[in-house]
């Protein structure tokens, strides 16, 4: 129910239903009026017919009475009585028909009064003729010369008939107007409903068009989003590949460095000469296994200790001038080699072992940061020479 289109369509359908209800009510009411009008028309026609029949019976009775007067035949007498009975019966029927219509009933009663007088006249004539009192018959008929009473009844009937016909015309006009009103009500309602249905159709079409536009926009958004997702996925995949490559590169660099260090270590460890790595202050920072093997000292007893603890250069021959500075420190300071110098290594047990001493300054970008000392053991027998 949150959809505005559905709300509008519902409003339109409510209006259409309201119009239909109005049409139905109006039509039912007019139909009911038409039925009532039709009943009244039928009733009026029945009254007119009955009055006409009364008039006809009255004339028939009048003729039959006069015939009987002339012939004196019992068959004419019977015909007269029958006609008079018909007149009485039709008068009662007319009264019964108009009993619920006071105005009509009043006029019928007036007519009936005249008819009754006329019937009484006929009965008096018939009785006199039957008694053979011709004189009385003549007197009665003479009194009725010109049949003024019958003409009076005739006028009353005509008047009554004309009034009923006028009312019929009036009712016809009313019925016509009602029929026209019903027709126009129905057509106007139908036209209004058609217009409302057109409005509903327009609303639905408009709603569907809006939905199609929204669906198209959503589709475009989806396509755009999908493209962005794919683009982002591709970027992530590329970044992932780059990271993966960088990771491999790092692992490779570490592995290669480790391999190189291991290889260098192998080389140093495999050298049979004693190798000391010195700091600039002539402290030992690293030794190879040959040093441990010869001196019997573990690396922990050598590292960060002065080189002079285990190695010393052999003093100058007696008579030679003693150097003012430690030649090893001087060589490192000056940055030059000290090659193949006689020296002594003292092992763990205090045993002194003659060696040949060589010092290479350790340079890092032309700056001396320490030194490498290699000692070659002097073979037995060569000591004196060394």
């Amino acid at each position, binding site marked *: 129910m949150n959809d505005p289109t559905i709300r509008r369509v519902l409003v339109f359908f409510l209006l259409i239903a309201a119009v239909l209800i109005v049409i139905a009510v109006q039509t039912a009411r007019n139909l009911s009026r038409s039925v009532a009008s039709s009943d009244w028309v039928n009733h009026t026609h029945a009254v007119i017919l009955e009055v006409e029949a009364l008039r006809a019976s009255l004339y028939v009775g009048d003729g039959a009475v006069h015939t009987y007067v002339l012939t004196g035949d019992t068959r004419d007498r019977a015909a007269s009585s029958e006609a008079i009975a018909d007149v009485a019966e039709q008068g009662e029927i007319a009264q019964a028909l108009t009993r619920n219509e006071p105005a009509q009933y009043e006029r019928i009663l007036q007519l009936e009064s005249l008819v009754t007088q006329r019937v009484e006249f006929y009965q008096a004539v018939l009785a006199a003729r039957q008694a053979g009192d011709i004189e009385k018959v003549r007197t009665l008929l003479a009194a009725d010369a010109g049949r003024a009473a019958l003409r009076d009844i005739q006028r009353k009937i005509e008047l009554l008939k004309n009034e009923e016909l006028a009312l019929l015309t009036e009712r016809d006009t009313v019925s016509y107007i009602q029929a026209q009103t019903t027709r126009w009500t129905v057509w106007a309602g139908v036209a209004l409903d058609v217009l409302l249905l057109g409005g509903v159709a327009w609303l639905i079409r408009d709603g569907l068009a809006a939905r199609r536009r929204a669906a198209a926009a959503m589709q475009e958004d989806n396509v755009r989003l999908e493209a962005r997702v794919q683009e982002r996925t591709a970027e992530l995949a590329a970044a992932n590949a780059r990271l993966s490559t960088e990771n*491999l590169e790092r692992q490779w*660099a570490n592995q290669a460095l480790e391999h190189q260090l291991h290889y260098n270590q192998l080389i140093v460890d495999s050298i049979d000469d004693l190798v000391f790595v010195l700091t600039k202050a002539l402290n030992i920072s690293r030794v190879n296994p040959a040093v441990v093997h010869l001196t019997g000292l573990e690396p922990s007893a050598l590292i960060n200790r002065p080189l002079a603890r285990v190695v010393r250069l052999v003093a100058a021959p007696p008579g030679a001038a003693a150097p003012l500075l430690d030649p090893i420190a001087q060589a490192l300071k000056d940055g030059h080699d000290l090659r193949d110098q006689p020296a002594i290594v003292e092992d763990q047990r205090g045993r002194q072992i003659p060696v040949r001493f060589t010092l290479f300054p350790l340079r890092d970008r032309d700056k001396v940061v320490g030194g490498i000392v290699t000692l070659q053991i002097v073979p037995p027998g060569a000591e004196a020479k060394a």
Partner: protein
Amino acid sequence: MKQHILIVDDEADIRDLLAQFLTVSGYRTTAVASAAEALLVGHQDPPDLIVADLQLEDADGLEMIAELKALLPDKPVILLTGVLFDPEVVRDVLSTKVACYLEKTSSLERILEAVRRLLGDCRA
């Protein structure tokens, strides 16, 4: 069809890393640890390029390279080793035996460049 590279190195970590990298870079690789395995691959699934270490457990790398060259004379060989050679040695000695000499401290990117160049890969 992907080009086939034979990697010969007795160090598993180095061998696996290089194989993984070259596979990611679009090549088919076979990584072996010994000269005997390398020669077997040379017979059964001849490679388009060989990346070999110098020092192997079961043989000398240069000898193995010579045997592989005898088997696959047209296939280039990259010597990838931790043994550092002087440029003169590389120029005078190694260049006659291998198509390319690379130190193991070279970056993977540089190794890939050499591989692409030797395989005539247009990406090089």
